[in-house]
């Protein structure tokens, strides 16, 4: 396969994103759906390309700056599916508010390009550029509702802290480049093996890890997460909290495992600290929240901590467990924010926990699906979230860190409280004031149902997705 065919999905998405941009400029001012369907069509086309050109082996393109391997293809497919569903949620939200803003879809498409570049990065340069393309689109998406003070504040915080984290990452990368003399991750992994320069590489590693931790939203680099999740418009939060996590995971694997694999001893210790801190802060602080978006933000922090546990094992099975975790998490968190969108009225957000009171009686089906999602996020068997935690914990114990697994289980138990509280609110509490049934449209109901049932099905058949992840990671060389 020549270089251009290898990057066909990325190239197509770029071309289509530009096309959607032009369509958006020339459409009638009230024909918002034209842009929407153009964006949906673009994602579908790219998704089919990724599926058709599914690679057996890993191959490099463009002088080793781009890697095409099963891990990239699997993550890209799930990223595109999540993006597609988030478009439907977003349309429902914007439609009911009578908003004609379509920049969401365009910026999301560009963020998608960034994510695909990041997932397939095989050079520090492409890692950085992919990340910047993704982040820049996300900053703009958060700031989109200009009239909202909260959204502007969130965007400002996200932008400033994000720029700082990018600076850290860049400093670490320049350090690695200065010592190794190469940006290529394959050549870097060879250079890192040199014991005599261990200290220098570790110094670079610290800064790179800070950058990765910030993008994943792991404590103690989590300060932006709750404010941004709460302040951003809900569809943006939904997008921000699902698809980019897949890309951030890929970034961690590419840089830490592929590039700096020889330093595993160093980054394992750092990851243990990050993981424990995140699980502690995420799960305990979430209990005190009354806003569901903020609560889910802290839940994200704890889940990302859990995700890091799989990387600590530093072998292919551990990475596969983490990959399973991040895919399941992206689907679950999309569903949870989807529920917040379904509940929001034409004029106001319904993001207080109280808004969920008595939901099961008003809209039994949505309440039921939300219950599945909450059980899954809490890690109750037999839902997908349980298996995600199970696979990761199995690897942690296999790597000889039984105490770490015990800590993780303990914090998950604490975390179960606030997920179950949502279920209690939905099924056993009465709303403060009488409320109408959920007013979301037909297609939002359909997407939400698909989302909830996917979590249920993955819970009954976790083996198939896990074997896909494992096969991808084994090709990657882990």
């Amino acid at each position, binding site marked *: 396969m020549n270089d251009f065919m290898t990057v066909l999905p990325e190239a197509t998405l770029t071309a289509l994103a530009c096309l959607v941009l032009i369509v958006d400029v020339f459409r009638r001012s009230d024909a918002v759906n034209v842009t929407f369907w153009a964006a949906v069509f673009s994602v579908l086309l790219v998704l089919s390309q990724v599926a058709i050109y599914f690679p057996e082996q890993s191959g490099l393109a463009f002088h080793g*700056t781009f890697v095409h391997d099963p891990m990239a293809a699997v993550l890209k497919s799930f990223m595109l599916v999540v993006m597609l569903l988030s478009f439907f949620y977003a349309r429902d939200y914007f439609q009911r508010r009578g908003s004609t803003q379509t920049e969401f879809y*365009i910026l999301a498409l560009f963020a998608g390009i960034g994510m695909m570049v990041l997932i397939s990065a095989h050079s520090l340069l492409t890692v950085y550029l992919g990340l910047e*393309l993704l982040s820049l689109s996300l900053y703009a998406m958060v700031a989109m509702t200009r009239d909202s003070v909260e959204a502007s504040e969130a965007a400002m915080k996200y932008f400033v802290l994000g720029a700082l984290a990018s600076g850290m990452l860049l400093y670490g990368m320049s350090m690695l480049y200065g010592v190794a003399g190469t940006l290529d991750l394959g050549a870097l992994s060879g250079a890192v093996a040199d014991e005599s320069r261990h200290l220098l590489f570790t110094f670079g590693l610290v800064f790179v890890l800070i950058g990765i931790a910030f993008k994943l939203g792991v404590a103690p680099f989590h300060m932006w997460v709750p404010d941004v999740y709460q302040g951003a418009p809900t569809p943006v939060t939904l997008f921000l909290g699902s698809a980019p996590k897949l890309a951030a995971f890929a970034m961690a694997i590419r840089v830490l495992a592929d590039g700096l694999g020889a330093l595993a001893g160093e980054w394992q210790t750092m990851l243990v600290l990050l993981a424990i801190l995140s699980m502690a802060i995420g799960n305990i602080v979430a209990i005190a929240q009354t806003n569901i978006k903020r609560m889910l933000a802290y839940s994200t922090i704890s889940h990302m901590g859990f995700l890091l546990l799989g990387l600590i094992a530093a072998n292919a099975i551990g990475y596969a467990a983490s990959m399973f975790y991040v895919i399941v998490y992206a689907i679950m968190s999309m569903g949870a924010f989807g529920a917040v969108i379904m509940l929001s009225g034409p004029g106001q957000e319904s993001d207080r926990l109280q808004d969920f009171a008595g939901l099961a009686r008003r809209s039994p089906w949505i309440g039921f699906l939300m219950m599945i999602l909450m059980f899954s996020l809490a890690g109750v068997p037999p839902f997908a979230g349980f298996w995600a935690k199970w696979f990761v914990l199995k690897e942690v114990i296999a790597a000889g860190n039984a105490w770490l697994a015990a800590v993780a289980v303990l914090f998950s138990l604490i975390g179960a409280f606030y997920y179950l509280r949502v279920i209690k609110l939905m099924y056993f509490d009465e709303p403060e004031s009488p409320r109408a049934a959920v007013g979301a449209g037909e297609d939002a109901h359909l997407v939400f149902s698909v989302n909830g049932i996917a979590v249920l099905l993955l819970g009954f058949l976790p083996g198939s997705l896990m074997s896909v992840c494992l096969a991808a990671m084994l090709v990657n060389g882990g």
Partner: protein
Amino acid sequence: MFEQIVFYCFAGMLIFAGSMVITVRNPVHAALFLVLAFFSSAGLWLLLEAEFLAIALVLVYVGAVMVLFLFVVMMLDINLAALREGFARYFPVAALVAIVMMVAVGTVVGRANFGLDKVAAPTPRPSDYGNTTELGRALYGEYIWPFEIAAVVLLVAIIAAIALTLRTTRQTKAPKPERQVLVRREDRVRLVKVDAERQS
């Protein structure tokens, strides 16, 4: 020997300008010191035989970016007192972090690890060696993929800037003359029957 003197001149100037940027009170002066910092680093790049980059740095950063920067700084009414608020309160923590960082960076980036015996000086190129040609080859050959991505990043920057500031007819309440002339009397005037005097 001559090269070393030039290097120390430029390096000293760079450090001086850099520290002035963050210490002077007047933001315009800070921006001007930043210009000096760019000039000195351009001089250092010349010593490294990167002529094209040195000139590009002066042309792009000094010529375009900093001029724009100066305009912005002059247009914004920056209140220094508000910016310096809380300086004393944060100083101890900041100083601690800075000292720890300095010690850490100092132990790593130093003669022991980056001395001339560890990293050899680049061999001088022949006089017909073209820095610009090599740069072009690298940019459009080896690094074509990152280069294209960088182009997309710039495109997103444009889209984001427009999306965040543009207020077109989609959002404004500007009058539309073509619709105004079509207005009929019945659309605007409503006759209300009001009694001439209060009913008793």
